[in-house]
């Protein structure tokens, strides 16, 4: 059974400057569905680690991933004009237990990135996989 706190919280920023935070100032949790419902108004979407100085931001207008405000052009495709940029975000849970539930573990991996259509119409993706510590694996494809 999972009740462990999330290590990354998300925030969405819309064109009019409105922010939708996963947890608002009153501590109320908002569903990601609120972001999906406003996907056409989304400007940036970011994850912040709750205890470490780590922030990953998707610039939805240009299709760029910033890690603590910096873009890493060594792996991210920056040559192409990116059309129809869409945020990719989900948490992958893996719960493992022995049969008597005495050795139960629950891991969470955070996936953040974007997909877009290149000038040739082909769909491309850039996704970063993060664990609770903020260790990253980057996937381009």
């Amino acid at each position, binding site marked *: *059974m*999972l*009740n462990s*706190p*999330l290590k990354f919280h998300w925030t969405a920023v819309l064109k009019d400057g409105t922010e939708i935070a996963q947890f608002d100032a009153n501590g109320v*949790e908002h*569903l*990601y*569905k609120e972001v*999906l419902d406003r996907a056409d108004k989304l400007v940036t979407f970011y994850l912040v680690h709750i205890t470490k100085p780590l922030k990953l931001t998707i610039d939805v207008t240009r299709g760029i991933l910033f890690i603590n405000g910096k873009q890493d052009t060594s792996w991210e495709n920056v040559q192409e004009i990116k059309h129809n940029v869409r945020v990719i*975000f*989900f*948490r*992958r*849970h*893996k*719960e*493992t*237990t*022995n*049969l*008597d*539930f005495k*050795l139960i573990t*629950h891991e*969470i991996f955070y996936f953040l990135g974007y997909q877009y259509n290149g000038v040739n119409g082909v769909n491309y993706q850039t996704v970063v996989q993060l664990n609770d510590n903020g260790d990253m694996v980057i996937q381009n494809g």
Partner: protein
Amino acid sequence: MAATLQWSEANGSGEVVTDGISNVNFGDVDGANIVIASYPIIAGENSYEKNIKLKFSGTFTKISNMKFWKSAGALGTGEAIKADEVTTYVQPVKTTSTRAVTAIPTSMSTALVIHSAAGAATITTPGYTRYICLQLQTIGSVSTGDVVEKTLSFQYDEV
């Protein structure tokens, strides 16, 4: 927070569901939270089937990509675990299962794909998955005593 996950089991002729079970031990009884020492499986016989499912509650938009497999714990000689997703509940039996007939997957790449109780690939409101029917089967040559401990894994994506 995120979605809250509980393991559940159903038993009896009336599909009595126990949420938040404390184990999925196999035994010679149709019941949840089995104490193995009280209901050992006789060599050459099967356990009663286990009908387990996962319950999601809490705050979430969508659960998808649900998978179930045995991630550790070798099967001994004469020991087999069968597992299949089933669409309906049937009272567990200890005769060789006609519902759990496939060797339990042992890697994520071959894992059972699990659906919502309604048969959808995603869950968008609090509720259950379909049942996973399991049975431990033995033949007479199986070693007596405790078998090697098994580890089960359940994976899902959430937003």
